[in-house]
C-alpha cells in the first residue's frame, strides 16, 4: 500500500463545497487535506476559491509543497507528481474536467479515488460526462478500479440516473452547511423587492434563459437580481456581485427570495443560505429543494402564476405567512446539519475504505506488453516503411524504458501484394500477423459496447481487425497507422492513431467521408510527426490540439550516412511521385515545359515512385497532358523518362547519381526521399509547404524552395538546381538525423502506448 494514511488530495475549488468537505473529512479523522492552489480563469469557475487555511496538517516537505502548489490540477500532470501523490495521499477526490487528467487519475493513482458529485444540472448524468471526457473509456477504467472507486454523491438521488458501474459504487457524502454571517444580526424585512439570484446572465446561456424567464413571468413585481455578472448587464434591477455584508443585509431586509430551479439533482447554495437566514423562499416544484423539504413544505409552487401570487403576498408584508413559510422551510436545513452529515460521512467513507484496504495494488505488473500495429490501407511506399519503423520503435522504446514490449505487425492480409523483402530483418520481438478488416453490424456493436463498457456512436457502422483468432485482443493497445479507414474502428482495445496528413483539405473538390472524421475522433490518442499536421488536424478534423501528440518522425535506414559531395557532373534529376492528386502533376509538367522550352534545361528528368509505371498508359490523364506538352516542347518529350516503381536499392542507386531530387507536391507530411537524397549528397528542389519546411529545419536541410502553384517559379527552381548541382548546400545535419533514429525517438512511441496498456 502506498500513500500516507488519512491524507487526502481533494481536487476541488468550489468555495462552499471545499469548506464543507474539509470539515467532514476532519470529522472522519483525515488530518491532512490538500486543495489545488489555482483553477482555470473562466466564468465557469465563478464559485471557485483558494482557501489556504483549509489544508493544514499535511506532512509535506517544502519542495513537495512547492511542487503541489505550482501544479495545474485541471490539466494532465507529470509522472513525478504522480509519484509524489502516491507517496503522500491515500485518497483522491475529483470532478471530471480534463480528459487526460481524468484518465491519469483513474490509472495512475494507487489509492482510493472519489468522483465527487454535486449534480451536473440539466438532467445530465456523471456517467455521460465521464464517458464523453474519456472517449467512452471511463466506465471500463472505473470498473477496473474495483472498490477503490467511490461515487461520492452529495445527494442520494444523484446515483439514480447513473450507470450501474457508478451506481453500485455510490456513497452518500452530503454537504454540510457552514455557519453563515447572514443568519446573524437583526431581521428587519422592510424591503419589498423579490430577491432573485442569477449570475452570469450574459456569460452563460443557461442563466440567460433563467433571467429571461424570470423577467417574463415575474418582471412585473419589484425585484432585485444578485449574482456575479462577468459580462455587463444593462438592467438597473441587476446589481451584480455583492460583498458578503451587503448580501447579508439583503437577506435580513428582503421579505422573500425566489428560486427557479426544477432540477431534481442539482441545488444552488443561495436558497439554503436564505432559509438559514429566516428568509422565505418561493420555489418551483419538482426540484431538489422540494425533495429535501417533503411534499408539504411551504413556499413550493407548481406554476409561475401561483408563484407570482405567493410572492405578492409575501412581499406585501403578510407577517403570519412569512413566519409560517420560514418555519416550514426549516426542515430543509436538516439535511445540511453538520453533525448528521458527519455521521453519514463516517459511516459511508470509513466502511468503504476499510473494505478496500486489501484491494490496493502494491506491485505494478511489469511483464511484457503486447501492442498491435495496423496498416489498414494498401500503402506501399513511405507509409509502409513508417509502419514497420513504428513497430520496431515501440520495441526499442520499451527496452530503453526498462520494459519489454512485443509487437504484432498487422498489414492488410493481401497474399502476394507486398514483396517478401519488405519484412526482412524485422526485430525478433515483432511478429507479422496480417489483418482483414471486417464490418460489424449494429447488434454486434451494441453487445460489444455492453461487454467492454466502451461507448460507440449510435447509428454508425464499425469495423474490427480480424486475425482469425481473437481480433487482436491479445494485444493491449492497437496502433493504427493512418486514418484512411472505411468506418470507425470498434475499439476492443485502446486505439492510438498515427495521422500523417490531411491532403483532401488542399487538393481536389472531394471532401473527406464523415466516417474518417468519426474514426479519428474515437481514437484514444492521435499522434502526428509534424506540428503542421497537428494544426491541420485541428482545422480540418476539429480535434483539440491537446489530444494530439507530436512525436518525432522515424528515419528509415536509407536515411543514414554522412553527406558525400560527389564532384562528378550528373546528367539527370529524380522526380519522386505517385498517383496522388497532391503530387501536382499538371503544374509540374507545365514547369518542365518552361524549364526545357524557355530556360533551356539540359538535365533529364527521371520519374519514379509507387505505381508510376501507369503514368505511361495510354489514356491516363498524365500521358494526355504529357503528350500535349511534348508537342509544344519536343525537348520535354526526349528528356522525360518514366522509370516506374523501383526496388529500394535500385532507387537509392539512381538517387545517388542524380543532380538533385525534385519534389513538386502541393502538400504532404514532408518527404523522406529528400532526406535519403541529402544523406547521399544530393540536394532537393522542393515545393514550399509547412511540413516540408519543418522536416528541413529538423534535419538542417536547405532545399531550393519553389511555390507549388507557379510553374514558372518552379522551372526557375529546377534551373537553379541544375546550375548549383551538388555543391553549395548544407545537406543534412547528421547529428539530428541520428537523433531521429535513436532511442529517444523510439521512447516517444513507447510513451504513446505505455500508459494505455
Amino acid at each position, binding site marked *: 500500500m502506498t500513500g500516507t494514511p488519512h491524507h487526502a488530495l481533494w481536487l476541488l475549488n468550489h468555495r462552499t463545497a471545499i469548506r464543507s468537505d474539509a470539515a467532514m473529512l476532519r470529522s472522519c479523522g483525515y488530518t491532512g487535506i490538500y486543495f489545488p492552489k*489555482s483553477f*482555470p*480563469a*473562466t*466564468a*465557469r*469557475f*465563478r464559485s471557485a476559491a483558494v482557501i489556504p487555511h483549509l489544508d493544514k496538517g499535511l506532512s509535506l516537505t517544502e519542495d513537495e509543497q512547492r511542487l503541489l502548489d505550482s501544479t495545474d490540477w485541471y490539466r494532465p500532470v507529470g509522472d513525478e507528481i504522480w509519484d509524489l501523490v502516491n507517496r503522500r495521499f491515500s485518497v483522491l477526490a475529483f470532478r471530471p474536467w480534463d480528459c487526460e487528467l481524468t484518465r491519469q487519475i483513474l490509472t495512475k493513482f494507487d489509492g482510493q479515488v472519489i468522483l465527487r458529485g454535486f449534480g451536473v444540472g440539466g438532467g445530465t448524468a456523471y456517467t455521460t460526462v465521464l464517458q464523453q471526457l474519456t472517449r467512452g473509456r471511463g466506465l471500463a477504467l472505473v470498473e477496473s478500479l474495483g472498490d477503490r472507486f467511490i461515487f461520492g454523491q452529495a445527494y442520494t438521488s444523484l446515483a439514480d440516473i447513473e450507470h450501474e458501474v457508478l451506481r453500485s459504487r455510490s456513497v452518500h457524502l452530503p454537504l454540510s452547511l457552514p455557519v453563515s454571517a447572514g443568519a446573524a444580526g437583526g431581521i428587519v424585512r422592510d424591503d419589498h423587492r423579490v430577491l432573485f439570484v442569477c449570475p452570469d446572465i*450574459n*456569460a452563460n*446561456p443557461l442563466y440567460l434563459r433563467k433571467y429571461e424567464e424570470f*423577467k417574463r413571468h415575474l418582471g412585473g413585481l419589484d425585484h432585485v437580481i444578485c449574482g*456575479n455578472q*462577468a*459580462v*455587463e*448587464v*444593462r*438592467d*438597473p434591477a441587476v446589481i451584480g*456581485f455583492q460583498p458578503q455584508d451587503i448580501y447579508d443585509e439583503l437577506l435580513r431586509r428582503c421579505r422573500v427570495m425566489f428560486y427557479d430551479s426544477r432540477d431534481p439533482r442539482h441545488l444552488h447554495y443561495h436558497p439554503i443560505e436564505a432559509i438559514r437566514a429566516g428568509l422565505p423562499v418561493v420555489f418551483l416544484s419538482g426540484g431538489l429543494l422540494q425533495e429535501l423539504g417533503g411534499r408539504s413544505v411551504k413556499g413550493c409552487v407548481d406554476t409561475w402564476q401561483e408563484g407570482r401570487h405567493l410572492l405578492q403576498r409575501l412581499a406585501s408584508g403578510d407577517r403570519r405567512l412569512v413566519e409560517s413559510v420560514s418555519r416550514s422551510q426549516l426542515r430543509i436545513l436538516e439535511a445540511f446539519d453538520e453533525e448528521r452529515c458527519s455521521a453519514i460521512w463516517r459511516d459511508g467513507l470509513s466502511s468503504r475504505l476499510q473494505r478496500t484496504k486489501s484491494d490496493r495494488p502494491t506491485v505494478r505488473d511489469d511483464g511484457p506488453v503486447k501492442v498491435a500495429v495496423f496498416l489498414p490501407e494498401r500503402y506501399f511506399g513511405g507509409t509502409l516503411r513508417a509502419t514497420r519503423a513504428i513497430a520496431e520503435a515501440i520495441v526499442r522504446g520499451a527496452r530503453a524504458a526498462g520494459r519489454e514490449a512485443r509487437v504484432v505487425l498487422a498489414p492488410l492480409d493481401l497474399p502476394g501484394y507486398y514483396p517478401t523483402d519488405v519484412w526482412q530483418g524485422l526485430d525478433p520481438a515483432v511478429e507479422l500477423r496480417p489483418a482483414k478488416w471486417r464490418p460489424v453490424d449494429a447488434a454486434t456493436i451494441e453487445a460489444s459496447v455492453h461487454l467492454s463498457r466502451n461507448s460507440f456512436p449510435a447509428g454508425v457502422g464499425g469495423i474490427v481487425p480480424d486475425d482469425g483468432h481473437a481480433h487482436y485482443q491479445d494485444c493491449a493497445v492497437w496502433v493504427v497507422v493512418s486514418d484512411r479507414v472505411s468506418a470507425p474502428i470498434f475499439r476492443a482495445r485502446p486505439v492510438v492513431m498515427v495521422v500523417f496528413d490531411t491532403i483532401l*483539405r*488542399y*487538393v*481536389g*473538390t*472531394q*471532401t*473527406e467521408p*464523415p466516417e474518417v*472524421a*468519426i474514426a479519428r*475522433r474515437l481514437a484514444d490518442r492521435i499522434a502526428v510527426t509534424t506540428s503542421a499536421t497537428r*494544426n*491541420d*488536424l*485541428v*482545422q*480540418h*478534423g*476539429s*480535434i*483539440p*490540439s491537446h*489530444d494530439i501528440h507530436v512525436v518525432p518522425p522515424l528515419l528509415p535506414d536509407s536515411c543514414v550516412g554522412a553527406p558525400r559531395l560527389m564532384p562528378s557532373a550528373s546528367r539527370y534529376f529524380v522526380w519522386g511521385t505517385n498517383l496522388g492528386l497532391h503530387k501536382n502533376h499538371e503544374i509540374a509538367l507545365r514547369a518542365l515545359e518552361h524549364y526545357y522550352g524557355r530556360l533551356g534545361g539540359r538535365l533529364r528528368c527521371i520519374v519514379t515512385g509507387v505505381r508510376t509505371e501507369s503514368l505511361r498508359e495510354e489514356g491516363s490523364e498524365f500521358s494526355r497532358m504529357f503528350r500535349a506538352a511534348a508537342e509544344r516542347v519536343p525537348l520535354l518529350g526526349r528528356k522525360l523518362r518514366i522509370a516506374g516503381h523501383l526496388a529500394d536499392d535500385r532507387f537509392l542507386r539512381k538517387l545517388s547519381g542524380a543532380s538533385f531530387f525534385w519534389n513538386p507536391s*502541393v*502538400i504532404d507530411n514532408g518527404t523522406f526521399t529528400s532526406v535519403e537524397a541529402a544523406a547521399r549528397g544530393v540536394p532537393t528542389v522542393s515545393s514550399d*509547404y*509547412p511540413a516540408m519546411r519543418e522536416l528541413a529545419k529538423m534535419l538542417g536541410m536547405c532545399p531550393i524552395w519553389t*511555390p*507549388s*502553384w507557379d510553374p514558372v517559379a518552379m522551372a526557375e527552381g529546377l534551373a537553379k538546381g541544375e546550375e548549383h548541382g551538388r555543391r553549395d548546400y548544407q545537406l543534412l545535419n547528421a547529428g539530428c538525423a541520428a537523433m531521429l533514429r535513436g532511442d529517444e525517438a523510439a521512447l516517444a512511441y513507447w510513451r504513446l502506448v505505455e500508459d494505455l496498456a
Partner: protein
Amino acid sequence: MRTYGLVVAYPPGTKLQAEGLGVVLVRLIAGMLEDPGIRIVIACPGWLQSSMRQLLREAQVTMDRLEIRGTRVPYSVRWLQWRQNGSSKIRPLRGHRRRPLDRIKGSVLDTLQQVKHRTQFLWAKACTPSDLAGATFWSLLLVPVFVGAMGIYVAAKAVRVMDRATTSALSRIARIIKADRAAAKVRTLIKSPRLATWILPLFNELQELQIAALKQLMSQSTDVESWLCPTAFWPALCKAPVPIVVTVPDITPVEFIVGFASLPGALETIVPVVDRVRSTARQAKWITVYSEHVRHQTLLDRLGVGLGRVRVVRHGTSNLSQLIQIRGTSDDVAATDELCRDLFWSALHRTRYRTMPIYEGAREWRFILYPSQFRPNKNIVGLLEAYQILLRRHLVREKLVLTAESPSVGEHVVAMGLQNDVVVIPGLSDQELAACYRLASLAISPTLAEGACPFMIAESLSVGTPVIVSDIPVTRELLEDDGLRRMMCFDPYRTSSIVERTLWALSHRDELIAAQRPLWERMRGRTWSVAAREYLAVMDEAALEWKARSKQSVGAIAE
C-alpha cells in the same frame, strides 16, 4: 423632457431582428435615451409591436422613457400571425411526445412483464412443497389480472385500429387536397404568408391602410416634437402633417442592376422597393444619409435631390467588447477567450453545408470572418474565389466564416469543394458575433459598394481584431491616412488584390492592429449618443422649420 418620435411601417411577418435596420434602430434609440431629458415614442403598425418589444428587450434597452404606439391590427393579420406562431410552437413537440394511450400501454405491459417474470421466478426457485404451494397460489391469483389486462389490451387495440382507419381516411383526403393546385395556394396562404408572392399585393394594400392610420396616429401625437423615419421604404409617410426626417440609406440595386435583377422575384420585391425609395427621396423635405458618397452620387447625381435638403449623419461606433468582456477573474483575457469559444461553439451548431462532424477542436479554429447578408454587392463569390486560392495555393491555416445564408452561396461552396473550410453560420446574436470577431485571425469586407462605412470596421477593431476592407468611396471617407488605407484596403474587383492583402494581413497581424489602433481611438469617440445628438439636431431643425411654415401659412390664411 422633450419627446421625439420614430416611425417604421414594415409589413406583417417582419422580424426586426433579422433586418439590418433593426441593429441601427436599437443603437439609435439607446443613444438617444442616454440623454435623460429625452423621451422616445415609437409609432408602428400593431403587427410590429411584439417584434419591436422583443428587439428592444434583447438589446436590454430600458423601457421607462420609451413608448410604443401601435395602430389596430386587422383580424386577418391577427389570424395569420396566430397561425404562423401557433404552428411553429406546436410542431416541434409532436415528434417527442408519446401519446397518452401509448404511455398507458407501455406501463401496463412493463408491469405485466415484471409480474410474469416474478411468477416464473417463484416456480423456478421452488425447492420445498410450501414454495410450490406459494407459486401455485400466486399464479392463480394472477389469472384475473391477466384476463383484465387482456381486456384492456384488446380494447386499446380496437381504439388504435379505429384511430388508424380514421387517420388513413383523413390522409387520403389530405392527399387529394395536396394534389390540387388551388388547395396548394390555400396551404401556402396558411403556412407562409410572407413567402406567397401573390399575397404580397394584399399585404401592400394592408400596409397602405396602416400607413394612413400611422399618419393619423402621428398627427394626434401632439407631444412629439418631430419624427424620424429611419428608412425610405414608405413615401406616404412624407405626407404626414408633422415634421418628419427620413433616412435614405442607399439605393444599391441601381448600381448592381443585373445582380439584383437576377434575384428570384426581383420584379415583385426589389423593383417596387427601389421605386418607393426613389419616391421618398423626391418627396421628403428633410433627409439624412450615412455618407457623402450617397449624398452626392446617389441623391444629387442620380436622383437630382437638392443638397440643401440632405444632411450626412454617419453611424455611431459599435463597441462590441462590452458584450463579451469578462471582468473580475484572475485572468480576464483568458476568461473572455473562453467565453468567446463557448459562444462560437454553440453558434456552430447552426452551421450549413458541412459534410463532416464537428468536434471540440473547433473551439480552437483559426478563421477569417466576413459577417454580412447575402446581396449582390457583398461580393461573396469574389471572396470565395480568393479564399480558394489562399487555401489551395498559399496553404493558409484559416477557415472562412460567413454569416450570409443563401442557396447560391451553398452551391459555390460545394462546387469549389470547400464545404469543410467555409463555415456558414447564419443568425448570429450580437454576443455571438462579438465572440466571432474576437476569435477571428482577421475580419474582411470585400463589399463592392455600401451606403455607409461598414459597421464591421469598428466592430472588429473594438474587440482587438484587425480588419481589411474594400477600397470604396465610403471607406475612403473614413480613412484619411493614405498609408493606413494602402495597408488595410484592397481592390474588391481583383481577386489577386484580395489574396495579396489577406496574406499580408495574416502574416503581419500585430503590425496591422497596431496601425489600426489610432483609427479605433478616433472611431470610438463617435458613440451612438453622438450620432443620436446629430439626428436630434436635424429633427429640431425640421421642427423649427415646420413651425415657421405653419405660422406662415396661418398668417397667409389670416391675411
